[in-house]
């Protein structure tokens, strides 16, 4: 039985009739009786409303209140579109910046592996030497941990590898993961077609030649052939049977690269991967406990803490070490959260992303201060309205609630706009990274998804409420009598708050600009830094001969013949091969090295980066030799074992470069080598790395199937690249080229993170400055408007326009100056934290600070002069009539 309004009104009419009749009976006139009855009854509308409310559930009631609040908020906002648009715009910029950074952060830390739920809670197991060097776990160790470590609900292993797909001229190189049989099961990834790999696929080395394709590879290279399962494809010249296609959302566990093939780890030796093992047959390679294969990963069993898992895994590691002691460098098992995986993409990216997040928050802070200022100003200009509401009995809570609802109404479109900004910005970043990485395929889990949306809405509403609420409270604290009597509405507190907001915005934008200036200058310095080798007129082409099924003997022959033909090319001034290129950006494995005459301290783990290089390496890369000679053709298997070390190693262990010649070094498990030369230091991985010891061994006295051909010549680099590529194809047309690019590009890749942060920070800096200028403008304009009366009096008393302008500019600049001073102090204190992200500039670089200061003060100046000048143009008479 719902509320019947007609019936209720009928009842009230009946009530009034009865009351009237009674009064008439008591002798009142008909007219008086009617009036008395009405008066006695009270407010009919309110009564009807209250009666109706008895029938509506409480939540309908509450919802109705909110809806009317929202309706009212929208109505009052559309009355001041400039205010509404400015707030939406400012907040949208702040949200856009932060949603963008959050999307990147999500890709690195929150859900790094697409297609795997809770992927951030994966835990990684690795071996750590006493000096903190992280090592892969060998296959037998993995098997032991997998079978005994009860801290994990399942422990899988996977190693990223480049393999060649197909045969002949159509073959191409792509990323594969060699995985344990339980890989898909542990990750919870299903097959879209056929089946995933299963534990049974890992039963014995070389026994299960199966492969699982990624959905993308299946569509791109196999035309989405529905009959693909069961067919045979060629990987590194080995036939593998397609077992299935993975879920389209899954792109492997590398976080950065797009993995297209999944092969059982037991097939890796058959495909030419030896994991630095000195064994030669597939089963002995996999049984070799010296050969680190991968860092196992898994989800913790429910209820297990990381600390407990660490303890258990370490204990298991100790059991292993006691039963069968292995390496020369003592190591223990460690477990860490996925994002801390040594050498993993998140670990590399997070410092940069952290910096970007912090800077993004600064932009948001400015946007919020901006909004607070606007709300405050608007609240002040609405004091009349608020006073009236309070006077007619509006509850204070209700008025505050209204102001807060107004802010939320503004926050939602701002969140939507901000998301739009991020959705358009992120693909630009992805496209840029893809271009840098080409021809390697990149996959970054950087979509603007539900998580990002939730983040944006929460941040938008949070900022709108927090920064709209305080000023809203200010507004509700209205002195009724004062406002109603039109006494000056300017209270002392809001004035001070307003000034504080200007100061804060200026200070924070200065901080931002200093930060972005420092990073931009670092990038510039890094671009012009000397990497220790000559990048111009140098081309690097990488191949991996095992991708075409070469064994060691054939491989050696191939590289020898390749060097001969390239050198015979008149366009080549010198050529060499190398295992690693300098400025690689990606971390390389280091090796344990013994140094003659140096007795390592107990438990000291002496491991350095190293390279395996061909004859003429130092001549080709133009790396200076301090003393001694370059590697030559005569340094082959039959000759005495030799090595070249860098200056840092020579000086650290033998005192001076000259002392190094004739001394001996030994790489783990090899023979002693005599040092024949000392080379200048090179930036091996990153441009901002500290000098580090480095050892070169001649390629002709060692072997590695994956090498880079490096050629130097007078021709432009692009031509050199094409020639080098042609030489390789001429020798073996079926060998996939892994990458071929001029070394001049190397700098772009090496500076990728620098460039990313510099570009984003300059966007942040400009955005922040624009917001701060806008905020300052708004507040100064408001002050000027409030002072119209004062201006009128001044001008009537004979003040010139420039006098008036000067007075206001003076006020604005004082605030700006104070803000800049605070910003400077904060910047001096905070940029020290940036020191690790900087290169070639000091954290107190005068130029960055000077530029930022000039921009900020210039911005404040413009934001102050314009409204002041407009004020000065007012006619004194109309100004005096204003109030």
């Amino acid at each position: 039985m719902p509320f019947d309004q007609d019936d209720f009104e009928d009842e009230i009419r009946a009530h009034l009739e009865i009351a009237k009749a009674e009064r008439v009976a008591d002798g009142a006139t008909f007219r008086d009786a009617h009036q008395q009855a009405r008066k006695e009854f009270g407010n009919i509308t309110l009564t009807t409303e209250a009666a109706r409310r008895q029938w509506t559930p409480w939540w309908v009631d509450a919802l109705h209140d909110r809806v009317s609040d929202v309706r009212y908020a929208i109505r009052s906002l559309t009355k001041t579109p400039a205010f509404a648009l400015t707030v939406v715009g400012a907040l949208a910029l702040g949200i856009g910046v932060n949603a963008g950074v959050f999307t990147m952060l999500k890709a690195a830390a929150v859900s790094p592996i697409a297609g795997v739920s809770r992927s951030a809670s994966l835990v990684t197991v690795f071996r750590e030497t006493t000096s903190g060097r992280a090592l892969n776990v060998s296959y037998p160790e993995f098997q032991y941990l997998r079978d005994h470590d009860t801290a994990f609900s399942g422990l899988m292993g996977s190693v990223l590898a480049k393999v060649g797909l197909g045969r002949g001229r159509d073959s191409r190189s792509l990323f594969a993961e060699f995985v344990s049989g339980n890989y898909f099961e542990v990750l919870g990834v299903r097959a879209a077609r056929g089946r995933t790999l299963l534990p049974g696929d890992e039963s014995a080395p070389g026994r299960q030649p199966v492969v699982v394709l990624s959905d993308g590879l299946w569509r791109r290279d196999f035309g989405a052939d529905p009959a693909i399962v069961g067919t045979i494809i060629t990987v590194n010249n080995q036939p593998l049977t397609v077992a299935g296609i993975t879920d389209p959302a899954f792109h492997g566990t590398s976080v950065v690269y797009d993995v297209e093939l999944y092969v059982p780890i037991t097939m890796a030796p058959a495909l030419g991967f030896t994991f630095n093992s000195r064994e030669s047959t597939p089963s002995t390679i996999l049984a070799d406990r010296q050969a680190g294969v991968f860092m196992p990963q898994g989800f913790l069993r429910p209820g297990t803490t990381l600390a407990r898992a660490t303890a258990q895994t370490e204990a298991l590691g100790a059991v292993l070490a006691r039963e069968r002691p292995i390496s020369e460098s003592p190591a223990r098992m460690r477990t860490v959260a996925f994002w801390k995986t040594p050498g993993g993409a998140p670990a590399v990216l997070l410092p940069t992303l952290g910096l970007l997040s912090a800077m993004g928050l600064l932009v948001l802070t400015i946007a919020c201060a901006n909004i607070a200022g606007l709300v405050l100003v608007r609240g002040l200009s609405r004091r009349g309205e608020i006073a009236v509401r309070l006077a007619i009995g509006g509850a204070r809570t209700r008025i505050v609630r209204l102001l807060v609802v107004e802010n939320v109404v503004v926050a939602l479109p701002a969140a939507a706009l901000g998301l739009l900004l991020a959705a358009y910005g992120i693909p630009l970043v992805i496209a840029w990274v893809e271009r840098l990485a080409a021809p390697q395929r990149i996959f970054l889990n950087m979509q603007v998804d539900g998580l990002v949306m939730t983040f944006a809405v929460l941040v938008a509403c949070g900022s709108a409420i927090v920064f709209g609420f305080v000023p809203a409270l200010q507004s509700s604290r209205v002195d009724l009598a004062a406002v109603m009597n039109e006494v000056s509405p300017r209270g002392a507190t809001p004035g001070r708050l307003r000034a504080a907001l200007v100061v804060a915005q200026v200070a924070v934008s200065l901080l931002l600009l200093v930060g972005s200036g420092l990073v931009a200058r670092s990038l510039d310095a890094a671009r012009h830094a000397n990497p220790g080798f000559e990048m111009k007129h140098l081309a690097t082409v990488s191949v991996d001969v095992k991708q075409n099924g070469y064994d060691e003997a054939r491989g050696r022959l191939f590289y020898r013949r390749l060097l001969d033909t390239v050198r015979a090319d008149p366009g080549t001034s010198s050529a060499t091969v190398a295992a690693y290129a300098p400025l690689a950006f990606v971390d390389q494995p280091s090796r344990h090295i013994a140094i003659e005459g140096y007795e390592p301290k107990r438990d000291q783990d002496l491991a350095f980066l190293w390279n395996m290089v061909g004859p003429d390496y130092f001549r080709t890369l133009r790396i200076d030799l301090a003393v001694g000679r370059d590697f030559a053709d005569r340094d082959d298997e039959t000759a005495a074992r030799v090595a070249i070390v860098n200056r840092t190693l020579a000086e650290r262990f033998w005192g001076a470069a000259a002392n190094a010649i004739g001394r001996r070094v030994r790489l783990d498990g090899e023979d002693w080598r005599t040092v024949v030369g000392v080379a200048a230091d090179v930036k091996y991985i990153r441009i901002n790395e500290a000098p580090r010891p480095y050892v070169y061994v001649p390629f002709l006295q060692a072997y590695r199937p994956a090498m880079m051909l490096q050629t130097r010549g007078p021709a432009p680099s692009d031509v050199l690249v094409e020639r080098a590529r042609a030489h390789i194809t001429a020798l073996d047309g079926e060998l996939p080229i892994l990458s071929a690019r001029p070394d001049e590009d190397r700098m772009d890749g090496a500076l990728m993170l620098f460039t990313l942060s510099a570009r984003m920070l300059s966007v942040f800096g400009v955005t922040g400055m624009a917001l701060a200028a806008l905020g300052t403008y708004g507040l100064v304009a408001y002050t000027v408007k409030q002072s119209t009366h004062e201006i009128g009096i001044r001008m009537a008393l004979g003040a010139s326009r420039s006098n008036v302008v000067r007075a206001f500019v003076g006020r604005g600049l004082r605030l700006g100056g104070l803000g800049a001073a605070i910003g400077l102090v904060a910047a001096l204190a905070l940029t020290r934290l940036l020191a690790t992200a900087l290169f070639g500039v000091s954290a107190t670089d005068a130029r960055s600070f000077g530029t930022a200061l000039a921009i900020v003060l210039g911005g404040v100046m413009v934001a102050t002069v314009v409204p002041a000048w407009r004020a000065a143009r007012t006619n004194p008479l109309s100004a005096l009539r204003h109030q």
Partner: protein
Amino acid sequence: MTLHSSRAEARTDLLHGTLDMLILRTLRWRPQHGYAIGQTIRAQSSEVLQVEAGSLYPALQRLAKKGWVTAKWGQTEAKQRAKFYRLTPEGKQQLVREASRWTELVNAIARIMNPAAAPGTKE
């Protein structure tokens, strides 16, 4: 005691309950229309309790919703149209409960306010 006709949520449960109880009590012996209920409460309280229409009618709706009273249009003795409220059996039970609760409450308050003279206290 005056029962204000302000917004429903502003009133306390105690007042709610008390007004409901008074209405139920008024309907104890015979059905009555709204105006008469107000007049009865006023007269029986010797003009102390003025039940305003703004409280009375929402309260009647509340009681109807709970099923303690039912309403039916009829005629007054003066042949005027009016809606008459009648106590349901549930309403009668409710009245009994309310009444005993009320007695307890009054006694309790009386013991606090006037410890010596209150009925039911042991010296």
